[in-house]
């Protein structure tokens, strides 16, 4: 069981990607993720993979970390590949047995559509590996700030996001402790029939929520005691500032997207 979960699995290193303004990083990664769905040809796929793997290299992320992080995704990609392989019926038939038909289009779709997701996954991974959660929050705060103008709680959402990242490991430990305690009382989440598992959810969910309310009580006391009153009057220790290298990064992503669309 993956017991101690860290969402901010930051990999400390000094690379151009690490130094990049987190706002640029987030927007860039989002752009790469969205344009993944415009990939329809092998050439586009090659470009996408080359670009995202190139970024990984520039970020000095060791292959080990990347493979470790991508491994759980591999299973999903494989399933997706198989799905396409067996459901696409157009194109030349390569092999046929009973109800199973494998066609050239199927093979193509299997590779194309699963591998293109890898591009998006790598982009998301890079953000988490190269940005500390607090820089991420700063960027979030800056990007969500416009929401405040239309009456939505932009700053608050950024703060909520950051506190959530902070509390996930703490509450994960607690969730484990509570589920252990209930297991010892014969009602754990462990294994069993789905019905049993659903029933076992009740004690754990209630206990976790009740205790998170206690934490919230204390946390709000801590925020008050440290004079947190929204972001109006806050200063920043490391204020976000766009440098020329950030503009270059911006241009790179733009060029990549243009090329991707041109190849389509």
């Amino acid at each position, binding site marked *: 069981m993956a*017991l101690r979960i860290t969402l901010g699995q930051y990999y400390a290193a000094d690379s151009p990607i690490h130094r990049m303004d987190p706002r640029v990083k987030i927007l860039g990664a989002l752009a790469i993720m969205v344009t993944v769905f415009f990939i329809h040809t092998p050439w586009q796929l090659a470009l996408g993979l080359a670009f995202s793997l190139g970024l990984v290299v520039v970020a000095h992320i060791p292959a080990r970390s990347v493979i470790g992080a991508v491994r759980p995704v591999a299973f999903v990609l494989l399933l997706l590949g198989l799905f396409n392989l067996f459901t696409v019926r157009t194109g030349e038939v390569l092999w046929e047995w009973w109800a199973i038909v494998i066609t050239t289009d199927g093979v193509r779709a299997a590779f194309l559509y699963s591998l293109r997701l890898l591009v998006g996954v790598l982009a998301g991974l890079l953000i988490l590996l190269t940005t500390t959660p607090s820089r991420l929050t700063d960027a979030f705060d800056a990007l969500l700030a416009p929401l405040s103008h239309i009456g939505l709680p932009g700053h608050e959402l950024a703060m909520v996001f950051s506190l959530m990242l902070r509390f996930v490991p703490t509450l994960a430990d607690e969730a484990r402790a509570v589920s252990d305690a209930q297991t010892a009382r014969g009602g754990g989440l462990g294994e069993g029939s789905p019905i049993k598992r659903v029933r076992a959810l009740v004690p754990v969910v209630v206990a976790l929520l009740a205790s998170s309310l206690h934490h919230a009580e204390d946390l709000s006391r801590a925020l008050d*005691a*440290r004079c947190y009153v929204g972001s109006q009057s806050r200063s920043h220790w490391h204020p976000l500032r766009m440098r020329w290298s950030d503009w270059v990064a911006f241009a790179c992503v733009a060029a990549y997207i243009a090329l991707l669309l041109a190849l389509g």
Partner: protein
Amino acid sequence: MTSPANSNKPVASLSHVTLSYDSGNQALVDVSLSIRPGEHVCVLGANGSGKSTLASVVCGLLAPDEGQVFLAGEHVFDATRPAPVDYDAYGRARRNLGLVFQNPDDQIVTTVVEEDVAFGPENLGVPSRQIGVRVERELRRVAMTDYAKADPTRLSGGQKQRVAIAGALAMEPQLIVFDEPGSLLDVRGRSAIMRVMGRLHDDGITIVHITHFMEEALQADRVIVLEQGRIALEGTPVEVFSHTQQIRSLGLEEPFAARLSRKLGLPWTCDEDELLQRIARGGPVRGGRTQERGLATPSAEHVLEAIGVSYSYDQSRHALDEVSLAVDKGSSVAIVGQTGSGKSTLLRLLCALEEPDSGSVVVNGTNTRRKRDRRRLQGTIGYVMQHPERQLFAETVLSDVAFGPKNLGLSHDEVQRRCTHALELVGLAGLEDASPFELSGGRQRLCAIAGILAMEPSLLILDEPTAGLDPRGRRELRHILESIRERGVTIVQVTHNMEDAARADWVVVLDQARNLMEGAPSAVFCRQTARTLAQAGLGLPASLAFANRLEDAGLPPLGSPLTMSALVEALTAPEDAASRLVVVDDAGRRR
């Protein structure tokens, strides 16, 4: 002790303050209090007596219902004004007030230590350059500079707490309130906090310190004792603790020296050094031996055995490394060790919740390697987790307690019988239909423990059951465990309290995932092991530490008195046994 240089205008002053929560609980009743600059005030009181509420009022986080409040020179609250709460004044006052409280986890708001220290100054709008200066300075002050870039969730409790203190200090407050900062920490963590506090006091920062540890109160200039929201006692530590009867009836206890001096029939004092001198100068000491406590009968029927157990959560580090342990039937075993030494992990393995990576755990003759066996064993072992009140979930106390017995598949009547019995045992009879969430903190813990007792386990495993309880709560819980033990239940408990450990039959010391020592309390806690224990972040029971100091002061060897009664016995002359002071000891009853 207030330095005369400071202006004598109080940093905080409350007059006739009353505060009730929506639930109708009167948390503060007519409290008047004024805190001078540079003063070190200690607040004592039973669980639920209103200490934390007072802390919040003093820090400007809660506005009361009645009375007047002045904080940091601002008139923030006045019930007679049309708008009692002056929000702007509160805002200004809060910039000069800091708060550090019990659970370090809840006060750390970011995932990098230095960023967390910077959080306060950022909120105050301090310019970037100065923030850097402050962060560095405060981390140095709490000796955490090496951890500036660390992830706080990976630090030990004591280190986290010091980060929290640095975070409060970075705002340069005039006054800091510490709300039980050490109650979840081990011996080393607690003494580090006390050292930091001493340094702050020397720097002229006003300190309000809430604690359940009476020894800590002795360092204060003034002690305030709360009882159900009212100030029951106030004065210097000596004045307050001299009200012996009242202190006890308020659910507190006297400091060590006071108890000892009273039992020895010496002039009352709560100053250990003074007592030491007096005894060394020629108290009624004959020197002596404490009789060895009979070791647990070597019947050697192990109900629980761990042999060379290793376990790790991730590849990088062992949480347990070749740990061994054997528990005799009917005995009580204490496991001690500093934070992160692997105690809780060991308990999880002993409870058959997990299998070890290598080595084996044998419970009642069954190896826990097979999943099916583990499942079967889980019903027979009672496991009380750290902060068991966090496992409460049901609508009523009764249904929460009945959860375990029901899962055992018992008949309705049997479930009912066991629940009633368990609730009686912990003293919650009559509260069956209350919601567990409406109980007080101490009772919630007892309710959770009842839920485990109702399964009538023959082996009870507890993880720091007394953490965060007041002296009375600790005493009550000890009695409950004692009475369960008398019924033949084997008890294994993790504790940070050396006094509790000394009361067990067998003590296991863990350090950095390994067995450091084990043996009868008299073997583990003695003069020779003091250094080793200190290096492992632990200490000696107070009686033994005091006996060692007496010997250093030239007294004949006193043996190793682990409890106060043993110390008193060693100190009083054996011949005139008739006139020997025999006082009924609440804590160290020998069997």
